[in-house]
């Protein structure tokens, strides 16, 4: 048994940015590690430029995310008016930029998730974590800054309602968490549902990037270019994916790849067995 922190993420729009080059800003279909840790950082009042504290957060907590409702992707057509030629004039506010110069319009397409609902589960990887799970829960209840679900224009539409409890596995902790029923009942459920879980316990020997090792991309992770490189590990764990959402440096927006275990859980099995059953019994792995 171990302690787990669980909370829900719901908003009519959410966006979890993945690799974005140029005008298309795609979203992942599940919350990314960088988004969840960013949420914690906002709740705790850790600024973007506090690289060491952010790295510490990433290192200290393991993460699993459960999908309740996958939602649908919205592609938003977005135009941005960049200030045009301003000569020697210094423009002090956006209004002046928009009204006093001939703007150059930039096109952008931004993806959002609509009608999606997730629960997140976090656990401490070591005793030396900078905050206890109870402290994290308290920070989420009375956050230091406003929280948002991936983009600032995506506020949470339910309290995150964090809970800390003892469970056998992350899967069991996620299964035990009750999401807000009136919302959950209205949305389309996925069956089976997905769980994305940090696969780091499988990769302990390879080591994750550590706080001191920033900002270089650790060779062992960087080499894991595709799933084949995971070799025996992939076979042992079933579904494995590589997600590039492990921040190396916030200021420079560098991300490392993170091995993620993908579980597919049938809702029938889940409800028949209830929370504290050994999770492996109800899990079927993704075919890869």
């Amino acid at each position, binding site marked *: 048994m171990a302690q787990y922190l669980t909370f829900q993420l*719901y*908003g*009519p*729009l959410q966006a979890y940015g993945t690799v974005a080059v140029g005008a298309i800003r795609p979203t992942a279909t599940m919350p990314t590690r960088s988004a969840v840790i960013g949420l914690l950082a906002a709740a705790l009042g850790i600024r*973007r430029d506090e690289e060491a504290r952010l790295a510490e957060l990433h290192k200290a907590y393991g993460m699993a995310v459960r999908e309740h409702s996958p939602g*649908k992707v*919205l592609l*938003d*057509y*977005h135009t*941005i008016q960049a200030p045009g030629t301003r*000569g*020697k*004039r*210094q423009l*002090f*506010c*956006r*209004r*002046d930029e*928009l*009204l*006093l110069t001939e703007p150059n319009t930039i096109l952008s397409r931004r993806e959002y998730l*609509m*009608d999606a609902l997730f629960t997140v589960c976090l656990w401490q990887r070591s005793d030396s974590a900078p905050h206890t799970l109870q402290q994290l829960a308290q920070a*989420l*209840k*009375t*956050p230091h*800054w*406003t*929280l*948002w679900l991936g983009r*600032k*224009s*995506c*506020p*949470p*539409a*339910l*309290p*995150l*309602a964090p809970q800390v409890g003892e469970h056998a596995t992350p899967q069991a902790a996620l299964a035990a968490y009750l999401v*807000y029923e*009136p*919302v959950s009942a*209205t*949305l*389309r459920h996925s069956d089976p549902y997905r769980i994305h879980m940090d696969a780091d316990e499988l990769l302990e020997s390879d080591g994750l990037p550590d706080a001191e090792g920033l900002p270089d991309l650790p060779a062992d992770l960087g080499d894991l270019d595709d799933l084949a490189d995971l070799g025996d590990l992939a076979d042992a764990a079933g579904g494995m994916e590589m997600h590039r959402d492990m921040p190396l440096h916030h200021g420079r927006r560098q991300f490392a790849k993170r091995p993620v275990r993908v579980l597919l859980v049938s809702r029938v099995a889940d409800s028949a067995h209830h929370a504290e059953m050994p999770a492996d019994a109800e899990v079927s792995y993704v075919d890869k």
Partner: protein
Amino acid sequence: MSKFIQLHVLTSYPASNLNRDDLGSPKRVVMGNTTRLRVSSQCLKRAWRTSDIFQNLGSEHMGVRTKEMGRHIFTALTKGCTLQDVLAGKAASGHAMLEEKEAVAIARTIAGVFGKNKSAYDPKKDVDTDDSRRKLLESLEIEQLAHFSQEEIAAISAQVEACRQNRKAPEEKQVNLLRTNIKAVDIAMFGRMLAAEKDYNMDAAVQVAHAMTVHAVTVADDFFTAVDDLNRDDSGAGHMGVSEFGAGVFYLYLCIDRDLLQQNLQDDAELTNRALTALLQAVAQVSPTGKQNSFGSHAYASYILAERGNEQPRNLSVAYLTGVNSKDDVLQDAITRLTDTRAHMNKAYGQKTECAELNILTGSGSLKDLAAFMVG
């Protein structure tokens, strides 16, 4: 003091196309498995921050729009009166009088902050000297009209008096302050991200969600023809087209991080309060400009619920997850659902927030009272 101020706003737009996608149809979103009209957060913010309300920042006194501030500064310095006297058309009041050359330098430097200076007048190069006075004064104007709030005019006036003492033009940094103090409010609220100039980055203190209708909406097509007035032979139309539109009651949500706003405004509490008032006014009264000439859909908010507290803010859009499906009064149903949802949510999650409201259906509350509640 409360950290977070949340605004829940219901605004009913008649037939309109406020915010379009690349094909010209109104932007949409699926919420609770039904399609709603949407106005994006960036569209709302653009309308608010370019509005006159933001220019005057909730001040009861309107500012002025002029090219001529430079010549008035010049007059004030050379005639020995204050800038306010000159603007009010009063006679001289016995301050020190500067040389024209000094006054020109000061006037150009200050006016130049608000717009591009016209080219300097050089009497030596002018062959026709009859009109030199008029030409000199004109050269002190700026190229475009600029807006001066009352606060800026007061700040400029103070700057003019300081220059009168020193007999020289102010440093660039000093005059830039004339604008940054007053005008950076929109950036303090909505933030700025410039990859190249990191020092100018600022985290937005105001979070604005995309506005969505509280009910399902089917976007309608308007097939239209335009007649060619001079065409006598052909019976066909001169032009045919289709324009898409929709109508609905929109739910808007904002969350203001009050501490961050004040921090972004260099800890100026008074300016923060004025900024909050201006934001409330803009949210309640300013519509996006999209297709306003075709639809004239300017709308004021019908209902505003303001909350303040320190607990995790949450949008109340779940009130409309199942779309309002009322035959009688969509607005009244939307208001009831919003207040009920707030009560249920606070009970379920053990949250407490203070609140105040403005309701056009019952005539209760006013913007002034709400602003006072926000300023708290």
